[in-house]
């Protein structure tokens, strides 16, 4: 079976400092994988390299076995990477459903230019139906017509997830989904995500600082520290390892 995401030796330097050195990780289809590490470990940089926001100096990013290292962000998105943002990025001045509709339309591909320009204005019935199915799954059905400005942060994150799901991703990258949410909201979000993921079977790579969420949500984890992978394996074992504790807590930080 080909891995959904396969990065090989990704290396990135900022002003002489190695932000990532030789990071290689695998995400299998349908898997939920965590990527954790202390502040400044390079998690966000790695994310950006996978998405194409940053170009790695060395190393490759393979998506379903295809090398996408040279492709721009939107081409990678069309090949099956969906994502959410740590600071939510919504479109403003539109409704919840509009967010999903535009993603659905992009997925269906560009038409003739003049048709895209003038025709195809109103969303078709099946476009709306496709969006509403996802909204239903995420528990957002009642908010479909709501202007985006009226949403809470937690709901906003779900809209981001919904928007990403409309592209039918093979891999969903979640960027610190718990940031800005309190404990209960985080748990709700995790439950919804898990349900949708199990129903649709895409893989998830979760970058997260909340260790509890990672422990509850993922089966396997990678740990980054100083731009290097220092541990990988089943999440429970990874979290129990003294190396990881030291990365988080400093030398001698963990008991035992």
């Amino acid at each position, binding site marked *: 079976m080909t891995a959904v995401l396969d990065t090989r030796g990704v290396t990135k330097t900022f002003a002489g400092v190695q932000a990532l050195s030789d990071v290689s990780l695998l995400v299998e289809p349908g898997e939920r994988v965590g990527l954790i590490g*202390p*502040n*400044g470990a390079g998690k966000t940089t790695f994310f950006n390299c996978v998405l194409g926001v940053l170009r790695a100096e060395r190393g490759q990013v393979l998506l379903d076995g295809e090398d996408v290292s040279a492709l721009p962000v939107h081409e990678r998105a069309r090949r099956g990477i969906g994502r959410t943002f740590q*600071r*939510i990025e919504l479109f403003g001045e539109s409704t919840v459903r509009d967010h999903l509709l535009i993603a659905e339309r992009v997925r269906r591909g560009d038409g003739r230019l003049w048709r895209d320009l003038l025709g195809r204005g109103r969303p078709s019935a099946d476009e709306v139906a496709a969006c509403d199915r996802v909204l239903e799954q995420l528990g957002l059905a009642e908010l479909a017509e709501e202007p985006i400005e009226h949403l809470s*942060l937690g709901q*906003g994150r779900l809209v981001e997830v919904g928007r990403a799901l409309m592209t039918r991703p093979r891999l969903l990258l979640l960027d*610190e989904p*718990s*940031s*800005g*949410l*309190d*404990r209960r909201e*985080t748990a709700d979000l995790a439950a919804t995500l898990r349900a949708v993921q199990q129903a649709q079977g895409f893989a998830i790579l979760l970058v997260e*600082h*909340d*260790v*509890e969420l990672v*422990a*509850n949500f993922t089966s396997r984890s990678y740990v980054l520290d*100083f731009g290097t992978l220092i541990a990988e394996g089943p999440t429970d074992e990874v*979290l*129990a390892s003294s190396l990881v*504790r030291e990365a*988080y*807590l*400093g*030398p*001698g*930080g*963990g*008991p035992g």
Partner: protein
Amino acid sequence: MTPVLELRDVSAGYGPFRALFGVTLQVGDGEAVALLGANGAGKTTVARVASGLVAPEDGTVHVGGEDLTGAAPYRFARAGVAHATEGRSVFSSLTVEENLRLSFRRALGSARVDEALGQAFDAFASLDRRRHQPAGTLSGGEQRMLSLARVLVESPPLLIADELSLGLAPIIVDEIYAQLARLHSEGTSLLIVEQHVSHALGLCDRVVMLEHGAVAWEGAPEQAGERVAERIFEHGGDG
């Protein structure tokens, strides 16, 4: 005795983002408090609220008994709060000497600047060798030393030290903590924000743990080591 710093029921964030949900925190006169927690728990935001960089949406901030809620950061600085911010906390385009001069002139008056410069360079010989070099060319450790040199000479009532050990070699971390201990012994109160707990625990009188933007645990450093690891890693159910 009035605490040097007091946050009462502070909620704060960045635009739609709430980072703190009703945090209450005191730093007593001469006390050293360690602020611990996983990243994203809101430690840096607490530090920023305490130095006026982030205005609370709710709650109050008192420095030395004076209500500074919503005041500009320069008023916090004049009330005696020094803040060594997370990451780079020196002006990288100014030289080492200019960095110090800028702060000394304001805090001590122009007459005492040269004397203060002398003191700072005596304490940090490595900075003396680089006094005319732009601070941006210093190594990470030297930059932290520079921000400490300023504080050491001015000896303000409160120093907020945000992640001073981040990304540094252990030997330099030891030196930084030695300087912090010296400051503390000279009477400066400390609010130490750390992710790496071990050093902080050795220095502080009291530990405050943050989780999801709220104070989760407060207590003596002796019990903290266990608690920290527990809270971060042994998350059984609702912790």
